[in-house]
């Protein structure tokens, strides 16, 4: 159960997830990343402020998106993590690979 919005401006895409990101809908995130890249947006931010739960399949989709974005010469960043998503990231040691940003604006503007 998740809603997904894809907002694109001149240089970046923000994918906003609402609900739980699990194997039920991990493919939807992968598709959104593919769509953003196809539209020429290689800077992608996944806004997790309303993502209440992520499992390993959801995390795999985020990693897949990161790899795809990097292969296209861009980047994928995650912002506004809930405590649950932060915990999953720490337990999987992926907070080193996917550095969490406090806000979407920070992820869009950060280096």
């Amino acid at each position, binding site marked *: *159960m998740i809603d997904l919005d894809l907002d694109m401006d001149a240089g970046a895409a923000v994918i906003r997830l609402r609900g*739980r990101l699990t194997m*039920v809908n991990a493919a939807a995130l992968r598709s959104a990343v593919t769509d953003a890249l196809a539209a020429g947006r290689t800077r992608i931010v996944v806004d997790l402020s309303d993502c209440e739960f992520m*499992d*390993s399949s959801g995390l*795999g989709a985020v990693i897949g998106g990161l790899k795809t974005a990097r292969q296209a010469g861009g980047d994928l960043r995650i912002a506004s993590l809930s405590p649950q998503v932060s915990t999953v990231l720490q*337990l*999987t040691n992926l907070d080193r690979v996917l550095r969490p940003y406090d806000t979407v604006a920070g992820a869009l503007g950060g280096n």
Partner: protein
Amino acid sequence: MATEPGVSLTAAAEPASLDRVHALLETVWAAHEDVGPADRMSFAIAVTEIAGNIVAHSGSGRPLVFSLHVDVEPEELRAEFEDPGGRVDVDLSAVRMPDDLAESGRGLALALGCVDRLEYRREGETNHWRMVRRRADA
């Protein structure tokens, strides 16, 4: 030792059933408001990962049904899964996180990080997964 009958679910081993697993946990938490947020979160992660593992691997492409039973005790949370799928070839003592950029293979390692005990056993034609988390709030 058991003080509560627990809550059970039987569902098809398909991705959509993960939402039913979450709904079951919400029912459990509503009945046990004393279970703290850290315990709820960690237990939910482990339960979701094992459910996901059953959905992804047990059926080998053929439909099957799994069951989940959850018990809340004063000092621990317990979940037990059963499914009639193929034997799971896993050594839980050897489970490690995969490479950073791997897109799968983290589920069991994540589950192990969230509970105090995770066991798999094969009995006859049935897979049994059992997990226990000692309550930090106990």
